[in-house]
C-alpha cells in the first residue's frame, strides 16, 4: 500500500499504473521462464519479454524518473511506484536488466550529451539489449587485473581480449566494457567503452554452460575489434572510477534508474507450502520443530532485509552512510542460497528429482535454484570480496591489498 503522505500526483500515477497493469496483463509466456532475466536464453522468450518491456516503456512504467530529452518520463519518485506495482501485479520481469540497472545509470553519470541521446531510449524500450564486459578469466574478484587491451590508432581503438560470465551476451547489441589502455598503472590504466556486439566484426559470442546444464551466459572474444573514440565513456584512464559507478548500481547500493520489475513471490510462503506436503519419517515437515525453527529463521532474515531497505532512507538510524547499502548484494544472495538449501532439505529425497521429472516438488525449483544461487554469491564481486569491502570501507579495518 502507498504511504498515506504520497503527493497527489504520485497517488494518481499509482492508480494509473495499477489500472494499466490490470488491463494490459501479458499472455502467459510461450515456455517456462527462468528464475531471473539474466538466465533467459531462448529466442522465443527474448521476443516475448522484449515486447512486454517495450509496452511497459510506452506506458511510462520504465524510465519514469529519467529526463524527457533522453526518452524518460521526466518525473520524480514515480519509478519506485511503478516497480512496486509491477511486483504486485506479478507481471513478467523486465528483460534488459543490465541496461536498466547498470548501463543507463553509468551513462547518465559519465556520458556525453550525444551518448545519452543515442543510447538511453532504445535501452529503455528493449530494442537494444545490453550486456556487461567486466569479468575475465584472470580478473574475477581482482577486477582491476584487466587484460583485455585497447590500443589507440588515430581516432579508433583496437580491442583484443576475452570476457567471461557475460549474461545476455547472446542477445546483446551493446556491452559496457572495461579495457586496459596502460600497463603502467593497475587502476589508472583502465578505460571504459560502450562496445557494439551483435554483428560487429571481430566479436565472437560463445555460450557457457552452467553447472545446472542451463545456458544464459557466455564468453565473448575480441579479435582486433575496432571501436570509434566516440564510444569511449569518460576519460582515458578513468575506467576504474566509471566501473565503480556501475558496480554501485549493480550491487543495489543506489536505486536503479530504469526500474527492475516484478514477479517476486514470498519464498517463505512457498517453503511453508512445501513443508505441508513433505514428510520426515512419518511426520509432516511442517510439524517438525527443527524445520519450523529453520523456516522462522528464514522469515526473520527476510524481514531484516526489508527493514534494512527502509532504514537506509532514515539517516538518523544509520551510523555510516554505506553500512547498509553495501550489505545488500551479500545478504540478498546468501538469503536466496540458504532458502533454496532449506527447501532441498524439506523436500527430502524428492529433491533428487530434476525439473523434467513430473514428480519433482515445485517442478524441481529447490535444487535448481540452490545450484543457481552460487551465480549470485560469486557474481558482482564474490561475497568474500564484499566482506573485505565492508570491513575496510565501513569498519575501517586494514586493507587486504
Amino acid at each position: 500500500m502507498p504511504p498515506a503522505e504520497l503527493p497527489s500526483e504520485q497517488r494518481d500515477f499509482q492508480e494509473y499504473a495499477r489500472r494499466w497493469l490490470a488491463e494490459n496483463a501479458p499472455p502467459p509466456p510461450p515456455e517456462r521462464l527462468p528464475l531471473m532475466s539474466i538466465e533467459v536464453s531462448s529466442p522465443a522468450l527474448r521476443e516475448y519479454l522484449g515486447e512486454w518491456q517495450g509496452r511497459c516503456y510506452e506506458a511510462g512504467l520504465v524510465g519514469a524518473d529519467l529526463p524527457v530529452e533522453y526518452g524518460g518520463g521526466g518525473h520524480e519518485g514515480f519509478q519506485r511506484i511503478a516497480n512496486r506495482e509491477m511486483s504486485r501485479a506479478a507481471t513478467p520481469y523486465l528483460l534488459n536488466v543490465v541496461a536498466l540497472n547498470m548501463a543507463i545509470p553509468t551513462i547518465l553519470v559519465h556520458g556525453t550529451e550525444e551518448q545519452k541521446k543515442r543510447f538511453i531510449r532504445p535501452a529503455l524500450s528493449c530494442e537494444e539489449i545490453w550486456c556487461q564486459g567486466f569479468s575475465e578469466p584472470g580478473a574475477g574478484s581482482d577486477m582491476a587485473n584487466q587484460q583485455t587491451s585497447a590500443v589507440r590508432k588515430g581516432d579508433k581503438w583496437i580491442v583484443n581480449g576475452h570476457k567471461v560470465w557475460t549474461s545476455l551476451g547472446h542477445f546483446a547489441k551493446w556491452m559496457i566494457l572495461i579495457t586496459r589502455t596502460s600497463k603502467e598503472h593497475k587502476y589508472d590504466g583502465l578505460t571504459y567503452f560502450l562496445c557494439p556486439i551483435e554483428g560487429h566484426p571481430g566479436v565472437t559470442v560463445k555460450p557457457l554452460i552452467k553447472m545446472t546444464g542451463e545456458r544464459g551466459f557466455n564468453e565473448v572474444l575480441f579479435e582486433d575489434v575496432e571501436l570509434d573514440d566516440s564510444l569511449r565513456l569518460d576519460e582515458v584512464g578513468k575506467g576504474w572510477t566509471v566501473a565503480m559507478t556501475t558496480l554501485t548500481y549493480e550491487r543495489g547500493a543506489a536505486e536503479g534508474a530504469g526500474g527492475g520489475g516484478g514477479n517476486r513471490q514470498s519464498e517463505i510462503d512457498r517453503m511453508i507450502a512445501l513443508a505441508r506436503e513433505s514428510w520426515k519419517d512419518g511426520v509432516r515437515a511442517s510439524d517438525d520443530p527443527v524445520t519450523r525453527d529453520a523456516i522462522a529463521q528464514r522469515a526473520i532474515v527476510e524481514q531484516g532485509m526489508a527493514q534494512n531497505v527502509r532504514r537506509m532512507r532514515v539517516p538518523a538510524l544509520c551510523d555510516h552512510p554505506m553500512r547498509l547499502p553495501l550489505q545488500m548484494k551479500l545478504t540478498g544472495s546468501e538469503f536466496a542460497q540458504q532458502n533454496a538449501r532449506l527447501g532441498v532439505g524439506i523436500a527430502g529425497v524428492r529433491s533428487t528429482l530434476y525439473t523434467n521429472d513430473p514428480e519433482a516438488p515445485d517442478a524441481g525449483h529447490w535444487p535448481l535454484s540452490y545450484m543457481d544461487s552460487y551465480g549470485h554469491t560469486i557474481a558482482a564481486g564474490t561475497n568474500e570480496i564484499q566482506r573485505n569491502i565492508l570491513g575496510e570501507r565501513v569498519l575501517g579495518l586494514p586493507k587486504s591489498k
Partner: protein
Amino acid sequence: MTTKTPPRDFGFGEDEQMLRDLARRFLDENLPVERLRQLVAADSEAAYVRGERPGWDEGLWKQIVELGWTGLAVPEEQGGIGAKLVAIAALVEEVGRHALPSPLVATLCASHVLRAAGTAHAKAWLSRIAEGTAASLAITDARGSWDPSDTDVHASAGDALTLSGRACFVQDAFKCEAFVVSARRNGGTVLCVVPRDAEGLTLEQSRIHDLTRDQATLHFDGVRVSPGDLVAEDGAAALRAGWPAVLVTVAADLCGTSEWQLQTTVDYARERKQFDRQIGFFQAVKHPLVNGMIENDRARSILYHAACQIDEGEADAETAARMAKSAASDAGAFLSDRSVQLHGGIGFTWECDVHLFFKRSLHNQVLYGDAAYQRARIADHLIGPIGA
C-alpha cells in the same frame, strides 16, 4: 476499506532523534567504561565470592529521574513523556551500549504492562512511575515459564486480596520501589502492584553472573493488597498485550551491547599487531566482524520495525517483536563470542572490559525467552501450531 500505512521512517523524526542523541551524550559523559568498571568490577571477589550486589550510581539515577526517563513509556495524561516506542528503543540501545546499571529497563517493562492493563488503578501507578518510582515485573514462576498465565503467587479469594508464594527472576528488584505482580485467583490471574516495603514481602537476592544488574526472588507471605493496587482483573491478557513492548525494550538493550562489542573489537583489531600486521588485516578476523555487523543490523532494523508496529497499533506487532528479540539474541550471542575470542588472551581476563558486556548480553539473550523460543512462537504464527 482503508489500510493504514506504516511511516517510512519508523516514526523516528526530529523529536525522537533529539531524545536518543541526548541519551548518547549524557551516558558518554557520565558513564565511560572506566567508570562502569570502577562501579561494578573493582573487585573480582565482591559478587562471586562474597555475594555482594554490584554497585550502581544512585546519583546518576537521580539525574535520570530528573530527565524524566522513568516516564518515557507513561502517557502525558499521567505526567509522563509518552515517547514513541521507537524512540524508547533507540534510547535503550544507548543504555545497552553503556551497560548502564539502573532500574530503567525494568521500569520501562513494568510501564508497558501497566499501560496495557489500562485501568484507573494502573494509571495511578503510571503517574507514580513518571514521578520517579522505579518498578519491576514480578511475573515469572520458578521454572522460568514465559506463559502469562503461569505464576507461583496465589491470591486469596474474597474481598481482601492477600498474596502468598513467590515470584522468581525479578530484574533489578533491589533498585525498585514497587513490583507488578501476577497472581493466580479463581482459575485466572490478576495483576497487582506491591510496594517494596509491603508487610510480608521479602527479597531474596539471586547470585548472578551479570555485574550490571541485580535479580531477586520475591517471597509473599500473606501480603495484603489494597483495593487501589489491583491493576488488572485479567492479568494474563494485560501481560500478553504489553509483552511485545517488553520484548522490544530488552532487544534494544541487546542491540546496544552488541554494537559496543562490535566497535570495541574493531578498534582492538586495528590496534593489535601480530606477524607485523594489525590483526584486522587478516580475513579470519575481518570477516567475522563483518558478519557480526550484518547480524546486528538485521536485529536493529527489525527492532525499529517492531517498535513502529506497536506504536501504530498493528495487529502483527507481536510477531515483529519476537523477531526483534530473536535476531537481537542471536546477534548478541555471536558478537559476545567474537568479542572475547578476537581479543585473544587479554579478552579472557577480568581486566578487559569485554566480560562486562558479555555477561549483560548473555543475561538478556535468555530473559523473556531466548532466540529459539521466540522462533517457536513465530512458527506457530506463520505455519500454525504443531499438529493443526
